């Protein structure tokens, strides 16, 4: 362990934490005297410490930039496994900020302990080793305790020699604990995971689509060109009529292939986000959505009665979007809870019901009012109905969409 680079990198991470502590007590030292007049000495210091040494560090940790630095540092120095996904952009969710703040506080506290020991220990060790050889009491470095000098204190020497090793092991242990906690505090939230997984799935679908397009268009054209040209060469002398026809066909196929290649390359060059090019998903893509949601920790029990094959595209697209939004809402408001999804299709309408256990007070926030309002409007335009609300401990969204709306 002493020779492992990882141990020393983790040690460095903790010492950085110790260094980051410094400004906060200093600030408390300025703030407390200013408050003493109104509050009295004890209360002033208590308030100053709570504000400067508790609230402020946590607030610092909540900053997006600090979170970014902590993720990088935890990855490089602690060796924490935080996934290799690109960090999510945009505003951080409050739950994410809270986790980051907790992480920063933990880094500072553990770092302060290990850092202080690192500073205090070397002089204490040196003086302890000298104790058997001197007369009079020996002070342990700058610490208060003393040891009587003389041969009677020989027992201190092995302890003093072991102390630095103990410190390294302590640091390694603390680093390992932090590394284990890192994914929970610095890793993506279920919601972010969902976004990451969805993004990845979209990219994969896009890549597969382009591969299929290349296969079908350019591959097809080149296969014709190869076969026809090979055949023409093979029968050049015996069948000139075939060769003439083959040259025409080769020209046409090659031209078509080039046109298709142009098209596919255009898609690849296009800077528009993948979502703008991938056809809007429908219920046919539901399994992928359920799978990606599952891998983000939300178990979806989906039950389908009837067939989704006959559902008009517009209805199918809207149903998919409702399910997608509802699952995102579940992740946002209730976290990783099991979700029941029931789809019932008959020849008149599609009924969709999604429910999940309520968790905490946030669930009463009506599932993100604006989102639900948008859903209502879109469903109304398809002559359908939405109801959403809490019902015997569960949040329930029910939608019915007519398959053949009468205008």
């Amino acid at each position, binding site marked *: 362990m002493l020779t492992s680079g990882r141990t020393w990198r983790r040690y460095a991470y903790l010492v950085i934490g110790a260094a980051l502590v410094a400004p906060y007590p200093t600030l408390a030292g300025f703030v407390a005297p200013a408050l003493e007049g109104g509050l009295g000495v004890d209360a002033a210091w208590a308030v100053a410490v709570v504000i400067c040494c508790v609230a402020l560090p946590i607030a610092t940790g909540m900053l997006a930039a600090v979170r970014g630095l902590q993720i990088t540092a935890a990855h490089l120095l602690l060796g924490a496994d935080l996934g290799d996904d690109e960090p999510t952009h945009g505003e951080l969710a409050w739950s994410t900020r809270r986790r980051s703040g907790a992480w920063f506080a933990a880094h500072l506290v553990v770092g302060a302990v290990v850092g202080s020991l690192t500073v205090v220990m070397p002089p204490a060790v040196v003086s302890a080793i000298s104790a058997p050889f001197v007369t009079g009491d020996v002070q342990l470095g700058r610490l208060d305790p003393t040891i009587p000098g003389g041969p009677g204190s020989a027992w201190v020497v092995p302890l003093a020699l072991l102390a630095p090793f103990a410190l390294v092991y302590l640091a390694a242990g603390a680093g390992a604990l932090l590394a284990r906690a890192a994914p929970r505090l610095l890793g993506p939230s279920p919601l972010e995971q969902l976004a990451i997984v969805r993004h990845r799935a979209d990219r994969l679908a896009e890549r597969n689509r382009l591969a299929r397009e290349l*296969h079908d268009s350019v591959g*097809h054209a080149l*296969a*014709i060109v*190869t076969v*026809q040209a090979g*055949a023409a060469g093979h029968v050049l002398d015996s069948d000139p009529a075939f060769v003439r026809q083959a040259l025409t*066909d080769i020209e046409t196929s090659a031209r078509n292939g080039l046109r298709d290649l142009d098209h596919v390359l255009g898609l690849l060059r296009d800077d528009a986000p993948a979502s703008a090019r991938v056809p809007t998903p429908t219920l046919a893509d539901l399994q992928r959505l359920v799978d990606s949601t599952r891998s983000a920790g939300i178990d979806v029990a989906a039950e389908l009665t009837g067939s989704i094959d006959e559902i008009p595209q517009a209805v199918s697209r809207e149903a998919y979007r409702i399910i997608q939004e509802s699952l995102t809402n579940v992740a946002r408001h209730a976290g990783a809870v099991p979700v029941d999804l029931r789809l019932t299709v008959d020849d008149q309408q599609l009924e969709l019901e999604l429910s999940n256990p309520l968790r905490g007070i946030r669930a009463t926030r009506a599932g993100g009012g604006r989102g639900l309002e948008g859903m209502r409007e879109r469903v109304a335009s398809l002559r359908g109905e939405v109801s959403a609300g809490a019902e015997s401990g569960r949040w329930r969204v029910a939608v019915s969409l007519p398959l053949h709306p009468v205008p």
Partner: protein
Amino acid sequence: MSLGVLLVDDEPLIRSGLRAVIDSEDDLAVVGEAEDGAAVTPLVRRLRPDVVVMDVRMPVVDGIEATRRLIANVDDPPRILILTTFENDDFVLEALRAGAAGFLLKRARPDELVRAIRLLAAGESLLFPSAIRELVLRSSPVAPPSGLDAAGLTEREAEVLRLVAQGLSNGEIAAQLVVSLETVKTHVARVLAKLDARDRTQAVIRAYESGFIARGW
């Protein structure tokens, strides 16, 4: 008498190119064409070709399904040569498992095509042994490698199977093992029977997939 070939491909220009090459050979003749796998079984019954040259991907009934139907429904079915645009196409391995005797890339040269048809019709050796090996080993295993112990091959039969996998013909195997051609034929027949394989291709695929022939070779 020349070997009869049935061409199956949804692209007319592929068929016309293949036909020009095949018909230009004295010992080969295209006896019919189809543009989808669904037509293969009835056409084979009527035309009795020796070899079916068939695209693996077709819009309605693909090469895999057409192979399955042909093997299941026709007594003494013809050898099937699968055509593919791309080497790493899982469909190809699936067609070989279903009973196709070999596969050929559409970018193969005309002389490779006619050689493949002759080789398949003779049934004496494996077509493109290294390509088949690549194809099987690149695919994800269908089952954990369990060896071929259950098949109960004798030591000599196992040796013959290894040489078959390397693409050796019966004659070459006989020369290598210093035994008669008849003996080799008997061994090969026994190996096929014990592995429940239709032909050498299927036996070799089994040998790779079971781990009987190690991935390293």
